[in-house]
């Protein structure tokens, strides 16, 4: 460990990724400096880009927090993807079913709660299966991903289809989450909406809950040693169920961004990918709330930057660039938080 102190790992990661990124872009026949410059100016360089960047990071903070929470209980929630899909479905159905007179202060929480509940149900089921029957959560959550994908496609193509549209019936106007250009006209045109405030708060709220409440302590105790947790009377299976339900709810809340914020309806493929990206966010974050926000912002920067230069560079090159940067970030993050031993 002492041979690779934090600073050296960070430096090596930056250097190595810079070399690889440069050569890959150069091999594709483009100017590396030009491409990186465009990626940065297209995201950080103007208000619209900034808004799009933050909008992309919003669901990632939620799915990242979902995966990170489950990890604290020793569970690997590969199912955030399906939980997002379930949330999107539920938010669209609930948002459209609300009576026309429902005021916004009731409509938004109701639709968001429906999304969270759908995710919680899906996640909690997998947690319960693990605690009750020992069915491994990686398998069960992956299966719920597949299940939700097929179910969503079927519903969107059938009963939920709004006439000739590809999307569902639009949700009640009062259930829409306001876009942020009302507060900051700067972001006009971007998808950034108020969900980002919720997403920014959630990693810190979850962290505080884990550290400051007895239920949170139990989650960490079970994650540390379920044998020992059981011996002090903690119900390991109940802890698994609750933790996965909360993790599912967090992932489901991503629908607030997509359905209540951006689209106002649901369609097949809405929110696809953010669940799996949440896995990377959680790994890079290394269990820190601030890390979740930072990792989500990094992922979003790469994704949005990729869109900006998509016309100039082949998509495959961008995938390689994103992967290299993420691996480097993960390496730094892991080393940064490696426990330092007290008495060796």
């Amino acid at each position, binding site marked *: 460990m002492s041979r690779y102190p934090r600073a050296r790992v960070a430096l090596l990661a930056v250097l190595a990724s810079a070399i690889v990124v440069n050569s890959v872009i150069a091999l594709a026949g483009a100017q590396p400096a030009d491409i990186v410059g465009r990626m940065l100016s297209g995201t950080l360089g103007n208000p619209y880009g900034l808004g799009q960047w933050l909008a992309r990071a919003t669901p990632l903070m939620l799915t990242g927090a979902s995966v990170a929470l489950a990890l604290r209980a020793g569970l690997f929630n590969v199912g955030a993807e399906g939980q997002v899909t379930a949330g999107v479905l539920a938010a669209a159905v609930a948002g459209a079913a609300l009576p026309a007179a429902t005021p916004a202060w009731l409509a938004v929480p109701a639709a968001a709660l429906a999304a969270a509940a759908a995710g919680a149900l899906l996640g909690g089921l997998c947690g319960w299966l693990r605690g009750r029957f020992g069915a491994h959560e990686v398998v069960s959550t992956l299966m719920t991903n597949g299940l939700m994908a097929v179910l969503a496609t079927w519903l969107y193509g059938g009963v939920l289809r709004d006439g000739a549209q590809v999307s569902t019936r639009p949700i009640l106007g009062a259930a829409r989450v306001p876009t942020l250009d009302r507060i900051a006209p700067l972001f006009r045109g971007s998808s950034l909406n108020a969900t980002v405030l919720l997403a920014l708060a959630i990693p810190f709220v979850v962290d505080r809950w884990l550290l400051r409440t007895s239920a949170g302590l139990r989650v*960490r105790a079970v994650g540390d040693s379920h044998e020992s947790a059981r011996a002090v009377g903690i119900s390991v299976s109940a802890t698994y169920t609750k933790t996965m339900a909360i993790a599912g709810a967090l992932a489901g809340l991503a629908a607030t961004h997509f359905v209540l914020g951006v689209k106002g309806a649901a369609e097949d493929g809405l929110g696809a990918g953010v669940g799996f990206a949440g896995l990377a966010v959680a790994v890079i974050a290394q269990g820190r709330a601030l890390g979740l926000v930072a990792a989500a912002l990094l992922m979003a920067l790469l994704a949005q930057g990729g869109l900006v230069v998509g016309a100039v560079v082949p998509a495959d090159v961008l995938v390689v660039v994103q992967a290299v940067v993420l691996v480097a970030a993960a390496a730094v993050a892991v080393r940064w938080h490696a426990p330092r031993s007290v008495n060796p």
Partner: protein
Amino acid sequence: MNGARGLRVESVSRSFASSLALDDVSLHIAPGEVHALVGENGAGKSTLIRIACGMIDPDAGSVSIDDVLLRPGDGTDANARSVGVVHQHFMLVEPLTVADNVVLGTEPRRGLLGLVVDRVRAAREVKSLSERYDLRVDPHATIESLGVGEKQRVELLKVLYRGARYVLLDEPTAVLSPSEIAPLLETVRELARNGAGVLLVSHKLDEVLSVADRIMVLKKGRVVLRCSRNEADREAIARAVVGGEPEQQPPRTSVVPSRKPVLRLENVVAAGLNAVSLELHRGEVLGIAGVEGNGQRALARAIAGLDTIAAGSVALDGRNLRDLNVTARRSMGLGYVPEDRSMGGLMPGLSIAENLALGDPQLASGNSRLRLRRLREQARSVAARFEINPRDPDLRVGALSGGNAQKVLVARELSRTLRVLVIAQPTRGVDLGASVHIHRALLEARANGVGIVLIGSDLAELRSLSDRIAVMHRGRIVATFPAQDATDEQLGPLMLEGATPKEHATR
């Protein structure tokens, strides 16, 4: 060196970290001889085996095989390969067949440049080998389809296939059912008749006396007894296995036996427990002696509520615990310290303060705000009382030394109001200083009226702390003595065979 053939271990010593595992031990196995090695867990038997086959190097001393010195670091050379080991834990590739496993690494070849493994020949050779030694097993069966006894036969075939002249068997009968033991012992004899030198590690005196030509007893890394088969004295061996140095008894108040026991077990039947009954009174320490794996762990877990019991009853203060979960039992004043503090004891990734706080059964359910400042203060005062170092309440328990971690665990259980404490191996892997603290804490709890079930393998420790000592053998309590009457002579045969010598003679 006198030039005689054989596997010779000459005055080897070996230490791990700071503890001496072997201290000047010599062992000579001649071809055609069965040599038995007897001793408690932790006596150094496995270390001796690993040194004898070149897996690890001794700190001092030497190993030679048929007069060729085994050089340090030679674990894989041809010389060392003439020594075959069957470990307690099998080392087999589960999805492969018996024949594949046996020949793995030394496969017979055929075809151009020997590029093709000749599996037909492998199976044939394995079959003939298994017939020759009567090690019945189908060469084409996959390992995962086999039972424990068959897997062990495959391990033996592996050793024989490689042409080992010396065969070291690490507690081979521990995993076998009684009907499988006799054939194994016959194989051991057959190996010796064919000129192999065999080392047999066993706890069971009957087996040892029935096959061994010579017997050696290890205790705390030293040879305490050597004898040949004709001079072997059953009692002397048992005494040597369990015997310890005489210890001084700390002064204690005597127990005033209450009319009602604080803990009572009646005919408890569970996995590993066979109709166990016991009574424990306020302010009493009941020691549970026994060779490990005779139901002690099951007893502790049954009382703690971690395993369900099939029949019988466990009562605390006269109340049947049958339908009470762990939390309810802990709320009634039951404490539990398992034998392995990292598996079922502490949460190494959590802080000292958090580990101590989790001892409170009220935290096991419901939700409440943690008063972090108060938890830290409490942790500081507990750490001071139990002399846990360093005294930082936010330090991860995993960063503590073994002794300090054990003090955290004992402190967690003893720092609330207890009626009964079940504690197993309280000072295993713990340095002397911490042991003294833990012993003092236990006696203090006893003086405060806590009833203690103390499960241990260190007889000296058991005798010095206990008021009574019960002996467990094969899941039952076979005898209970006042601690002062529990001599090594009394306990030894009971622990090893479940009966006193007299009973044994009449049986």
